[in-house]
């Protein structure tokens, strides 16, 4: 228990950051029109692909002889990239549809 408390204490700035970010996230999207729900979900989906950076860090500091770690890290990098690239491209395609409609107007 103490270890966890001291972990929190040591990371107070990160905790503040975390809580402020939560409110920011709520604030930023609270006025979204219903039509944009799906593209927004898709865009947010691409943004959490930032987890790829963690995969790169794991991979970048893995022991070159530890094949299990390398294998897992390699898959993590692929999956993370899939999330980022696929996410942004799909969102762009979706939003492209919306723009086309406006042009026809």
């Amino acid at each position, binding site marked *: 228990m103490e270890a966890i408390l001291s972990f929190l204490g040591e*990371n107070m700035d*990160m905790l503040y*950051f975390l809580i402020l970010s*939560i409110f920011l*996230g*709520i604030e930023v999207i*609270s006025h979204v029109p*219903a*039509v*944009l*729900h*799906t*593209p*927004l*979900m*898709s*865009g*947010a*989906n*691409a*943004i*959490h*692909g930032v*987890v790829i*950076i*963690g*995969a*790169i*860090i*794991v*991979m*970048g*500091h893995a022991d*070159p002889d530890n094949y299990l770690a390398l294998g897992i*890290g*390699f*898959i*993590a*990098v*692929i*999956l993370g*990239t*899939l*999330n980022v*690239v*696929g*996410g*942004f*491209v*799909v*969102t*762009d395609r*979706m*939003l*492209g*549809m*919306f*723009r086309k*409609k406006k042009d*026809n107007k």
Partner: protein
Amino acid sequence: MSEMIQSNILEISYLIAAVTFILGLKMLSQPKTARKGNFIAATGMTLAILTTILFHKQNGEGISNLGWIGAGIVVGSIIGYVMAIKVKMTAMPQMVSFFNGMGGACAALISLNEFTHYTSGGEVMMMNGEVLVILLGLLIGSVSFSGSIIAYGKLEGKIKDFVFPMQHIVNLSLLAIILALGAYLMINNLDEPLWIYLIFGLSLLYGILFVLPIGGADMPVVISLLNSFTGMAAAFAGFLYGNYVMLTGGILVGSAGTILTVLMCKAMNRSLTNVLIGAFSAKGGPAAAGSGDLTVREVTPTDVAILCAYANKVVIVPGYGLAVAQAQHAVHEFEKILEGKGVDVKFAIHPVAGRMPGHMNVLLAEADVPYDKLVEMEDINPQMPNTDVVLVIGANDVVNPAAENDPSSPIYGMPIIQVNKAKNCIILKRSMRPGYAGIENPLFFMPKTSMLFGDARDSIQKLIEELKAL
């Protein structure tokens, strides 16, 4: 470049990336700027990834295994790009779900690796924040992964809804077991990799059981929820590395995703709890009861074609069934032929038609239906009394008059498209099965309503042939 400068560049690029994520999300929530917002966030992401590879240092050592990392990024990019380009517009929700699952899996794998890395240094105390964060990241990432894949399968029609007795109790117990196991590990210093794989396996199982009973039509809400889960998992990984860009991206998506989930539920006039455990209460539903003495009138495609051809104004109400049958191109052709005959054709768009807000707009835009043909619910309702024919294609609950006049109805209070005020109402439907809400629709039994049974695309194709033959 000295190490100091490198690490400063890295931190500054993370700051820039974090700002692009916030800006991107903000812009994504407004129609005018949405596409640009997506692009800005993507640019920030690319910057963060590149600078991490170039400048990240841990205990003075840079990123190694560059070949592996490069190969992984190239493979992931190609697969992701091709999938995203090839996917049909109607299959968008499952595509998002799939990519979301990949992010969740990525977070889970990071936790797996970090756990073994953390415990490989001999005797360690497990009762600490790092292990806690690793375990939570593993749990949430795995649930998000397996849940997303199930949601993907459901939307693809490959996995059926699956309900068994006491399911919610089983699910809750499983979750409790996973949490207890995690706590047990930490308290007793159990650092065998076996344990972490056990938690991994149970979490995957929980994700599957969590999504299985939820109805296919509610998947967009579930995907949005799992989306915020993956955000949280990414944030936990960020916490572990003290990496602020991962924290920002993760938490933003975690909280924005949660709010978005709630907004989506609100648009359907339901609560999140209702969506998540609705399957348990709706079992066996009251839908079929009492309909025995009511009769419906069936029409032939010929009748419908004649009715439409000689009408002044036709309104088409598309719904989930239109999307499932992929009938958007057929319906556009139908509309063009009618327009050629001098009939005024409009599409009435209910905000939650298709259970995915904006679903119908995207679908009809794909078939090149002109934007000014799509009319919002509030604008079309006053026009209903002057409408000669309404064609309801695969929609049900959004035109159910019970929402307006039956206080005992579960959807009472939800705004509807008032098709019952039009002169004639034709329902294109596969069968008499009720919509996802599992409630009877009195509209079907009204004297001015006729039913045209069959797959939406087949039915419309028949209508087109009949129109051409006229």
